[in-house]
């Protein structure tokens, strides 16, 4: 729908989350950038979560609240000294409240190149039924 832009990418500082809950392990938490769109059948969420592998990704949906949580490995091996550090590394966390009811059994999650594509199919609304009235 939107044509590919050929503009230059600008640096966007990572958004750190002021986390309300205390983390069990110390570390930074960031909110991933997301695109959310929907069509008639489903809601689709795309989140940039570089460094998150499938086994470290936690997707939770309950009470119409969707929680994304992705852990990252600290990449610096021992014995490496910092020369120039421009960005911090930390896990990703974001919550959304959904307005639609989702068919949980059909949720699909794909994680490629650090981008999560989450497809949330909406529950099929019951087809309208005409009700005949018995005279009597």
């Amino acid at each position, binding site marked *: *729908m939107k044509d*590919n832009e050929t503009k230059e990418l600008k*640096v966007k500082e990572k958004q750190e989350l002021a986390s309300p809950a205390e983390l069990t392990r110390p570390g930074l938490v960031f909110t991933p950038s*997301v695109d959310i769109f929907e069509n008639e059948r489903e809601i689709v969420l795309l989140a940039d979560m*570089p460094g998150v592998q499938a086994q470290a990704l936690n997707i939770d949906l309950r009470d119409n609240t969707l929680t994304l949580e992705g852990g990252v490995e600290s990449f610096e091996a021992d014995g490496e*000294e910092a*020369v120039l*550090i421009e960005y911090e590394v930390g896990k990703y966390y974001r919550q959304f409240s959904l307005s639609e009811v989702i068919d949980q059994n059909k949720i699909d999650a794909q994680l490629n*190149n650090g981008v999560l594509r989450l497809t949330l199919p909406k529950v099929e609304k019951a087809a309208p039924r005409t009700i005949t009235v018995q005279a009597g």
Partner: protein
Amino acid sequence: MYRRIYNVPSVRFRSAFEQLDRMRRQFDRFLGDDAGGDRGMLGAGVFPQINLTEDADRFYLRAELPGVTSDDIAMQATAKNLSISGARKIESESDGVKYHRREREAGNFSRMITMPTEIDPDRIEARLKDGILTIRVPKAEAVKPRQISIN
């Protein structure tokens, strides 16, 4: 402690006054009109942001490039510089979708990074996995530190 490269100030403090000065400036920024956009990044302000580390033999350069595949990146190196350029693409969705949020951006990027010492461009290794680009850059033999024995 960071080395000086391209006049980026090192975080070491030369005197106690300089440390107080820096604290004062940070408090000014904290209480002032800093809207959070321009936090005085220590970096060059060019996409992508990089983390450069080193050990005795190599430099390690890392960048976060979600959604970028190896086909979309080109890298070139000389004995002193490394350049990374490419494009982040976002696939277009079918017609008729309605967006609730749109925070991710697509576009081109191009950055030249000057290494602190001479490097060996023929032996550079690069890996792109889960949206993280990791480049191992061996230092040139001539600049590696040598142990000097004292008689």
